[in-house]
């Protein structure tokens, strides 16, 4: 397997989470693990940012910041503004979110760096 051309390049992004019905439904589905990966472990990126990271649709992207890191699959969102990315609310972006006293948790403004990787998308660790 060959690595993407720009493998290793890290791109700063701001993640904004949103509610996704399938991430909610997956919690009650017998096939939770597969649904979780399909609907929750994704990041929706602009075309320009996908190019900058060097990934195509479905490729794996590692999102990291000082709080943690996750590996998810890239999806194209043609209306996503450059420099931003969207992720369904779930335990996955919560690995990257933080909280400062007197403020709300930063679910809708998570600063990360994104890079193409070949690592596996992790399975949910808990029910």
């Amino acid at each position, binding site marked *: 397997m060959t690595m993407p051309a720009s493998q290793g390049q890290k791109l700063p992004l701001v993640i904004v989470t949103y509610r996704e*019905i399938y991430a909610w439904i997956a919690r009650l*589905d017998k096939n939770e693990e597969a649904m979780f990966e399909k609907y929750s472990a994704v990041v929706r990126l602009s075309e320009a940012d996908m190019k900058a990271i060097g990934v195509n649709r479905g490729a794996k992207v590692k999102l990291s910041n000082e*709080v943690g890191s996750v590996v998810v699959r890239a999806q194209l*969102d043609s209306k996503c503004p450059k420099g931003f990315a969207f992720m369904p609310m779930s335990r996955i972006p*919560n690995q990257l979110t933080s909280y400062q006293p007197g*403020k709300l*948790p930063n679910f*809708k403004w998570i600063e990360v760096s994104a890079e193409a990787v070949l690592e596996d998308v992790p399975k949910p660790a808990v*029910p």
Partner: protein
Amino acid sequence: MASTATTVCTACSCLCDDIGLQLEDDIIRRVENACRKGSSSLYGARFEQRRSRHLVEGREVGADEAIDRAAAELSRARRPLIFGLDNSSLEAQGAGIELARRLRCVIDDTSSFCQGNLVGQILSGALPSCTLPEVKTSDLILYWGANPHHSHPRHLSKFTIYAHPDYTELGAVRRVTLAAVEVRESETSSVCHRVFRILPRADRDLISAIGKGMAGQETSADGKRVVDLFRKAKFTVIFAGLGLTYSLDNDYLPFIEMVKQLSSWGRVAVIPMVGHYNMRGFNQSLHKAAGHVNKVSFADGVSSGDQFSFLEQVRNRSFDCLMVIGSDPFASLPKSVSSALEGIPRIVIDPYQSATSEGSTVVIGSAVTGVEAAGTAVRMDGAEVKLLPPLAPSRPGDEEILRRVMEKVSR
């Protein structure tokens, strides 16, 4: 034996009351009228692999032993904390608040990092509101930072645009404008007549631009377009979502000021797009009991403040025993926050296994309220709805559990 029933869906705060069921030997065979979220919630209610069993330190026990141990943990604790209750009935919420008062402890729910402040502004009269049936008399419906197609899937068809009865003489066009303020291209924005797409965290700028436009000052193009829309409307309903809450970082003052200004042009009402089906019920119950919608301490009479928010309590490890009812903070909060809960005795009352119940000191499996247990809930607009459980309970309900714990607590 086959039978039919009508029930109220508790998958979200729409509390749809027209859900038809076909039952066979206490099993739901067919669900009618429910959305994808509601039907999965109803079908999934009896998915035993996901349901909680009564556990004490991971060992399966009877309900009595789990309740005894929960009461013992709470009695032993010097500073317990009660959290959750947004997925419980008003009756169970009342029991939870009573327990907190008895324990002289802090009680909070997800609304402290969700829309509790917005509900509080409505309850205090700072923001005008209306009922969902009244929305059918509006001529401008604005979803602000909300995508009901995913959060409240029947919202548009049951309460807003597709339920609107007022057509033009030609009969093809409704006399109502549907608009959205959104950062994403969402399913909701794709069916709107007007969409104001803004960058994340730009809601405050848009509100400021609207204020300038209303005052006749030079403003942005979007500001002008929103003002034009508001100017034409006789009755505007704004459905405020989490996008607005988080963009304003829970500071609704500019929004309140904007609504106040708009009210001079016509009627304006705000309805919060509450997520959990009875979060507004918790806010109203606590407001009635203690004068505050959330973040309450009964340690020294009644007090409320940010220091009693669940997030601050966790950050400061201000409690030595946590009781969680029908909530999953381990899954819904930043991991950096929830990891601070490690090592603190935890009592979880929940129909389903969750990240929070995993590894808890005590787990008490409860009935699914609305499906197996009766009660009352408060819809997003403040209307009370009686829940009609179609199935016999397989476990005790939240209210019964809380009252039994309360009887055994030695304080």
